[in-house]
């Protein structure tokens, strides 16, 4: 089953720029590969990733087959207030996963 790895600092000072790292385990099948019998392996990728900070969208990405398996994304945000980061991955064949992380801002 799919699983996520999230790296968010647990604590930060207000106004700090923090780095958020996310990894979702997923095959990211491109749809351009063939089996030995010559059949195309159907595409199965994550198409969209969203990160929300206390409900407000702070980062979004459209992914394509050119993103490597187990999509790894690193981005930044300003630590404004204590709260929760919600992460959401959506993909082909009804793929949908969520994860969250807490941060306390002083």
């Amino acid at each position, binding site marked *: 089953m799919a699983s996520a790895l999230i790296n968010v600092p647990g604590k930060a000072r207000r106004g700090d*720029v*923090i780095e958020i790292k996310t990894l979702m385990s997923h095959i990211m099948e*491109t*749809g*351009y*590969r*063939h*089996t*030995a019998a010559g059949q*195309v*392996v*159907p*595409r199965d990728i994550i*198409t969209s990733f969203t990160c929300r*900070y206390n409900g*407000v*969208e*702070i*980062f*979004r*990405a*459209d*992914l*394509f*087959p*050119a*993103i*490597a*398996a187990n*999509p*790894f*994304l*690193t*981005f*930044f*945000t*300003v630590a*404004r207030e204590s709260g929760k980061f919600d992460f959401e991955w959506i993909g*082909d064949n009804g793929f949908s996963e969520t994860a969250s992380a807490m941060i306390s801002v002083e």
Partner: protein
Amino acid sequence: MRKSEASTRRRFLGLAASAAAIGGVPIVGVRPAAATPDTMAAAIRNVVGTATVRTGKVKLDVPPLVENGNTVPMTVSVASPMTPDDYVKSIHVFNEKNPQPNIGNFYLGPQAGRAQVSTRIRLADSQKIIAIARLSDDSLWSVSADVVVTLAACTEDVI
């Protein structure tokens, strides 16, 4: 002047929407030819419309020589103060020779603090990668990088 601006914007949004719709349909059954510099140019046009793209401000970090095209670390950063008045709206990355010209679209905002995104990508061949950033004033900036790939990704057959 206003009117023509609005219609350009509408046309661009329409183009972007149709591009997104096409992108959502998986292409199966046909092995498409590799993307060409022309299809990359078309994909870039879909994103930037008729606006001019200037070179600069954007930094694209990819290794110049990679052994395995299946996972290539890539970092895109943009020189921007990331204030509410001057920030990066989005970063778009394209390639020349993968089956599809798009690599990823990343949407940021002034709350990002730093305009930098990292991920790992696939490269089917030695080729040029282009990153384009859209700033809050809708100006577009780009940079390109050449990568030599010894083992290709994406199209190799399943055993």
